[in-house]
Each structure stands twice: as structure tokens, then as C-alpha cells.
């Protein structure tokens, strides 16, 4: 077939439908030198092989992108992950970020919150407000989103084991703002499998955790239809040291596990699959990263259509958020990190990401300063508005090299997924430490390459300079823990403690049975039961997971 025919057909069908509702950013796209820019460039002849492996943007198998307009319609969502100290201080940072042009919030919680401990728990000492904001009860959440209209912005929350609790708090805050549950928009990370594998903020054993996750899928399907119920994350797997291929393989293997569980629970694939989102890492190897994003999209489309027989094309689409690779940031010559982040951000845009967080230059030293956060955001804005890479779709398609890499990543990732299946599936492979070992081996190899100087890290093992001037770093108020505990104490004294006990008891009964836990958690949250109290009920009933990997 002539390319012009395919293009004409695509424009009249797939593209026309979308443009009617969402027009492109400009009526005409041109290069800096006034050359015309096509929606999507094609080879002169398109054969069967082209349509089955690449296809058109917005069409199966989505290798070239999930929307027919991509960034010609609108840019990716610039979503900066932030949160520290108390809800009040984080709220100030969010409002600053919104005023600077970010379109979505991304909340970082502190470790006690992520592991379901109250700030005054013995386990929390020293950790309150350190790597994110401390949330104990609904009261903190009300402060966190003060003056932020939850019907207008979308919020991504990096929360996993207690995701149900934080989602319920979010819905409760929205209701207090007069926003209905069905209007709220955003994502909870809710990806427990990668916590066992790579990130460590698990609480309960896999079986019970997967039950909570399917409960969330089900409840959200009915109550918050536009909320992404999970963000299946390769990001942390990569940060823990995996290769790009392993990142894709392990992420998609996890994703299949969630799908299997949801199907077992009797959910309709074409209802919940649309709400599955993904989260990938963007590292330094530009072409490999671009190929990785394209390969992942194609693989997922095939899995959903062919293996799971999903009918709705929306179920076939791999939508993903990207964050630049934290592990590539150096503590030496920190301004070099701005350049690394630029390359990484570019790879995700060339790879068709739906949203992006760019890391700040000083994150190998501490939480970022406001100034560093601004540079990180500006990096995205320059790529979007000045570089021109967003003006045509999937610009690297057809490059012999990039297509070869894309095929290669698909092939090798499929092999690893098969190995995991042979080992009894993801959960068995986690319990045996098989998955963890894959990552540890790659991490060790990578680090040894650096030690041998086979891999150059500028400013670390080559081009080293003596740095006298130390960069300014972000300092946290040391009184955070004390203040947070005082606030929690006040809430515990002033709430209706009889109602708290009642709702917690009802949650316990539900946990012993098979009922969906979400309504019970929501009821407890609304009575200002704390995250620790709710999580402890479930700890009692479900037990706690202990990792044995090394």
C-alpha cells in the first residue's frame, strides 16, 4: 500500500474523531526554518509488516503512540513529585508548583505513612517528614489540599501498601470541598509487587496485599471511574539496578499478575484494564530508552488483546508516567545532573510518555531546593516549547537502529517473562528471591563496570575536579516530628473515639471475611481514624511480610 493511502485512511477515521473534540495546539506545524512538519512521517511504501509491528498513532499495536495527536494535541503532563515535612509546608510547595505551570500534583509521603505507621509510633522515630509529607489522619489531608480544587487538578500519590487508606482520605477531602467521588482524577501507585521486589515499603504478605488491590479495582470501577487505580512501576525496579530489558519484563509480568487476580475476583477486564497505568524510568542511554518505551507499548497491546482477549481498544493501550533516573544523579559537580536529566527527559518524550517528572540536580545530596525544582521543571518546558520534538509523532520510527533495538527489547523481555512463568509466576518468584536476584546481579555488574572504569561517569570516575564550594541544600525543620505528634494527639483527643472503635471493629470483621474493604476503610477515615490504627487492624488479620532476598 502507498503511504498516502494509509495516511488518508488514518486521518479520516482515527485522527478525525479525536481532532473533532480535541483540536491540535496549532493549525500548522513548521520547523524553525519554516519547513512543514507532518503529523506522522511514514516510509513511501507501507506493507503488512509495517502495520502489524508499528501501525499508526492511536492504532493497535500502538508502537508509535497511544493517541492520534500525541503532543500535537497537548503536551505531556508535567508532573513534579514533591512533598516533605508537614502537610502545611507541602501544600505551599504544591501551590507554588501550580503557579509555575505544572498541571498535576504528585505527592511524596514520608516512610511511616508509606508503611502504615502513625508519626508517634516507635517505628517512626527519626523518619517523620523526611522523604515526604507525614499524613496521620484525614485532618492532615485536608491541610495538604487546602485551596487546591480537586475537581480541576489530577493528583498522583506514591503510596502502595496503605493505598486504600490514602485514596479514601482523598475522596473524603474532595467531598468536603463539594467535589463528588466520580469527579476526582489522579493515580495511586498501589503496586505492591514491585515493593517486594525493589522498593521495600510492603506491609502484608502478597496474597492479602493482592486482595486489597482487587478490592480497590472493584470499588473504584463503581465510585471513581476516572481515577487510575494502579501505576505498575518499572521505575523502582530500574533504580534498584535492573537493565532496561528487565525493567520492561518485570513490570509487565507484575501487570499480568494484577490482571489475573482481578479476573479471578470476577471483574470485567474492559472495565478495570482502562484504569491500569504504568510508570517507567528514563535513563541515560537515549536510544535504548526510546526503544524501551515503544517495545513496552507494543508488548502490552499484544498481551491485552491476544492473551487476555480484551475487546475495548482502551484496554490495549499502555499509558505511562516517566521519571528521570535518580540513580544516575551524582553528588559530584551537581550541575552536570541538569544535562543528564535533559537527555533522559528527551528520551521519554521521544518515547511518547503521558506525563513526566524531571529530577532536580541536587537530589544525590538531599531533598531538592526550590531553585533546583524550578530548573527541573524548566527543562521540560524547554523541551516542549523550544526543541520542536513535540511537533511530530514518534520521530525516531523507521530508524534502522531504533527499530532493531525495539524488536530486541521485546524479544529479550518476553524471554524473561517466560522464565518467571516457568518459575511459578511472579509471587512464587518473589518468595524464592528469583526476581530480586535478577536485579541484584545486574546492579552488581553495573557498579563493577564503574569501579573498573569500563563505564565512565563524568565527574565521578573521570574528569574529576576538586570542589570547594558546597551547594546549598534543603534543610528540614527538626521540629517536624514533635509538631506532627502534637497534632495527632490533638486529633485523637477531639474526635469521636466511640465511632472510631466501631468503624475499626467493622473493618476487622470485614477483613476476616471476603467483603470489599474499601467502604469500611472510608468509614474509618471519615471518623479520623489514623493510618496506623487502620493498618494495624489489617496487620493483626493479615500478618506481615519478611523479605529473604540476598
Amino acid at each position, binding site marked *: 500500500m502507498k503511504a498516502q493511502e494509509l495516511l488518508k485512511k488514518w486521518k479520516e477515521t482515527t485522527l478525525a474523531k479525536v481532532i473533532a473534540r480535541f483540536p491540535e495546539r496549532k493549525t500548522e506545524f513548521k520547523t524553525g526554518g519554516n519547513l512543514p512538519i507532518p503529523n506522522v512521517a511514514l516510509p513511501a511504501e507501507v506493507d503488512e509488516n509495517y502495520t502489524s509491528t508499528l501501525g499508526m498513532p492511536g492504532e493497535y499495536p500502538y508502537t508509535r503512540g497511544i493517541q492520534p495527536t500525541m503532543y500535537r494535541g497537548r503536551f505531556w503532563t508535567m508532573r513534579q513529585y514533591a512533598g516533605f515535612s508537614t502537610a502545611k509546608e507541602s501544600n505551599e510547595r504544591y501551590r507554588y508548583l501550580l503557579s509555575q505551570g505544572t498541571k498535576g500534583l504528585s505527592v511524596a509521603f514520608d516512610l511511616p505513612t508509606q508503611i502504615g505507621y502513625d508519626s508517634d509510633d516507635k517505628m517512626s522515630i527519626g523518619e517523620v517528614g523526611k522523604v515526604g509529607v507525614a499524613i496521620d489522619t484525614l485532618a492532615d489531608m485536608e491541610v495538604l489540599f487546602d485551596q487546591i480544587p480537586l475537581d480541576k487538578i489530577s493528583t498522583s500519590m506514591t503510596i502502595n501498601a496503605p493505598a486504600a487508606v490514602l485514596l479514601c482520605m482523598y475522596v473524603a477531602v474532595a467531598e468536603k470541598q463539594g467535589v463528588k467521588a466520580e469527579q476526582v482524577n489522579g493515580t495511586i501507585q498501589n503496586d505492591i509487587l514491585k515493593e517486594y521486589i525493589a522498593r521495600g515499603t510492603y506491609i502484608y*504478605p502478597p496474597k492479602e496485599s493482592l486482595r486489597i488491590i482487587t478490592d480497590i479495582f472493584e470499588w473504584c470501577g463503581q465510585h471513581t471511574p476516572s481515577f487510575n487505580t494502579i501505576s505498575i512501576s518499572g521505575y523502582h525496579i530500574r533504580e534498584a539496578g535492573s537493565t532496561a530489558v528487565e525493567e520492561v519484563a518485570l513490570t509487565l509480568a507484575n501487570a499480568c499478575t494484577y490482571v489475573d487476580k482481578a479476573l479471578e475476583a470476577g471483574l470485567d477486564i474492559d472495565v478495570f484494564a482502562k484504569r491500569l497505568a504504568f510508570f517507567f524510568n528514563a535513563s541515560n542511554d537515549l536510544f535504548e530508552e526510546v526503544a524501551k518505551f515503544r517495545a513496552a507499548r507494543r508488548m502490552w497491546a499484544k498481551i491485552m488483546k491476544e492473551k487476555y482477549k480484551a475487546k475495548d481498544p482502551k484496554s490495549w493501550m499502555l499509558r505511562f508516567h516517566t521519571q528521570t533516573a535518580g540513580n544516575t544523579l551524582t553528588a559530584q559537580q551537581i550541575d552536570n545532573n541538569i544535562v543528564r536529566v535533559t537527555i533522559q527527559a528527551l528520551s521519554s518524550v521521544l518515547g511518547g510518555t503521558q506525563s513526566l517528572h524531571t529530577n532536580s540536580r541536587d537530589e544525590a545530596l538531599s531533598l531538592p531546593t526550590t531553585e533546583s525544582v524550578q530548573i527541573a521543571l524548566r527543562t521540560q518546558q524547554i523541551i516542549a516549547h523550544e526543541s520542536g520534538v513535540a511537533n511530530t509523532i514518534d520521530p525516531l520510527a523507521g530508524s534502522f537502529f531504533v527499530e532493531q533495538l525495539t524488536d530486541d527489547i521485546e524479544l529479550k523481555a518476553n524471554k524473561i517473562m517466560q522464565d518467571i512463568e516457568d518459575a*511459578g509466576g511472579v509471587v512464587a518468584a518473589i518468595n524464592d528471591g528469583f526476581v530480586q536476584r535478577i536485579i541484584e546481579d545486574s546492579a552488581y555488574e553495573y557498579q563493577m563496570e564503574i569501579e573498573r572504569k569500563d563505564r565512565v561517569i563524568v565527574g565521578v570516575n573521570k574528569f574529576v575536579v576538586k570542589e570547594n564550594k558546597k551547594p546549598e541544600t534543603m534543610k528540614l525543620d527538626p521540629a517536624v516530628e514533635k509538631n506532627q505528634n502534637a497534632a495527632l494527639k490533638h486529633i485523637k483527643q477531639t474526635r469521636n473515639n466511640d465511632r472510631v472503635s466501631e468503624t475499626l471493629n467493622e473493618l476487622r470483621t470485614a477483613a476476616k471475611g471476603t467483603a470489599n474493604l474499601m467502604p469500611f476503610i472510608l468509614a474509618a477515615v471519615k471518623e479520623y481514624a489514623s493510618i496506623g490504627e487502620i493498618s494495624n487492624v489489617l496487620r493483626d488479620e493479615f500478618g506481615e511480610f519478611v523479605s*529473604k*532476598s*540476598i
Partner: protein
Amino acid sequence: MSNRAQKLLADIKNKNARAIGKAISIVENETELCDDLLIGLSESEMPQYLVLGITGNPGAGKSTLTDKIIAHYRKQNQRIGIIAIDPTSPISGGAILGDRIRMMQHATDSDVVIRSMATRGRLGGLCSCAGATVRIMAASGCNPIIIETVGVGQSEIDIVSLADISLLVSAPGLGDDIQAMKAGLLEVADLLVINKADLPGATALFRDLQMLAREKEREITKTIASTGEGVDKLIKQIELLEKDYNESSYILKKREASKKKEIIDWSLEMVRAKLEKNIEHFALTNSDPRLQAKDFIKQHLKDMQ
């Protein structure tokens, strides 16, 4: 016995964690105090203790099962010792001792004495220092004492022979398990455990094992270590067996055999050190090394003290 050794022994008996830890290192490294210390650990003054061996392939869930067994004995207020053995890397001589991870919930319980030990590629297997470690733990009031190993290779079989009662743990889906058992571990194991008994394949494994077990008159117990199911039953079986072995004096025979094995192990260690030193001065000839070895031994074995 030196004053220092006496003080160390007294501290061990007083359950001082620091003393127990140091004493085990002294035996492991055969440092100066070693012989003095061992004089003080004579069997006659030792409280009663039972040595349990737990072995099985990686992935069978040994550590989790051990963890549950520890919890059981702690509920009955018994002080318990655990020796967790991991292989030494033959290339670097180093080792990662990771069994601790599964037992961290007992980290601050002073009545759970855990020691991780690397095989260190000893000539005489591991019985030498593991045996002494058992007695150090026993002297501090531990009963029972568990020795946990990865069930692959000769040194693990040796370790199992140190135990009064040994458990061979297997689980469905590990493939070559049965073959390994046939290869020798079954000979020395007293109880067979099928862990992860809720997994598919458990029934098939039970059937396979049953044929072997009947031949050797062994019991098979099913457990699910992750939930603790079957652990009580397993403990009962251990107690029954212990009673049985005691009444029939079989336990004495076992201990005699293991003592002899320990002596051989220590001897080999000592001989090897001597031989390695003396070979430096041995005048090589043109004859075959085997023949030269006979001469070498003739020359040097006499003065080996």
C-alpha cells in the same frame, strides 16, 4: 585452665551474649584460648540438650520453618540456640550469611542465640567447630539447639549427622528434590517434612516420598511454614522420636558416632596444617606423587601432636 578461660566459661553460663559470641569465634578461629575453653565444656557438666538438624534445598522454606519452631519453643519459655550455615564462596573465601533476615523478629530476644557460620571449605567438613558451638550454646542453657543448612553436598550431610534428630525439608515444585534425597540425605534424616503443603504438587510429592519413607520407616509431616500450620504436629513428632531414641539408647549411639566424626574432622584439620607446613621442606623426587606421599607421611606423621 587459665583465669581468662574461667571467666569466659562463667560468663557463658551466665548467658552473656557477648561471651557466647566471642567463645564461638575463638573456636572457629582456633585462637589461643580455644583448648582451655574446650576443657571447660566437658560433656559431664553439661545440662541436657537436644540437637535438631534442619536441612533441605534452597526454596524449601527452611528458614521460615525454623522461625516458627523457634517461636514454638519460646512460647514454652525454652532458651534456644540456632546455628545457621551458609556456603563459603570457593573463589573469594568470603560468604554472605543471609539466614538472619528471616529470624530478625527474635533479634532482641536474649534467649534466642543465633550464630551464622560459613562452611569455610574445611577439609574435615564443618563438624569440628559446629560441634563445639553446640556445646557452647548448651552450656549457656540452650535446649534445643538447631543446626540449619542448605541440603546440597557432603558437608551438609555431615552436619545432619551431628544432630540427634534431623529434619529433611522439601517442598513441591523444586524438581530434583527427590533425586537429592535418594542420593544420601534420606539415609541420615529422621523426619521428612513437606513444607508449602498448600501448593499444587504437594500430594504428588507426598506420594513420591511415601515409597521412600516406608522403606526407611520414616514419618512424613506436612507443614505450611508461612502460616505455621502443621508446626505443632511436627514438634510432637520430634518429641515422640526423642523419647523413643532415649529409651532405646539410640541417641547415645548417635552421639558416639558423631563424636568420632568430630574427632576425625579435627584431626584432618590439624594434620593438614602440619602437612602444609612440612611440605615446604620436603625434597621432591621423580617418582609418582602418590608414592612420594607415602614417604612424606612416614617421615612426618610420627611427630604430629
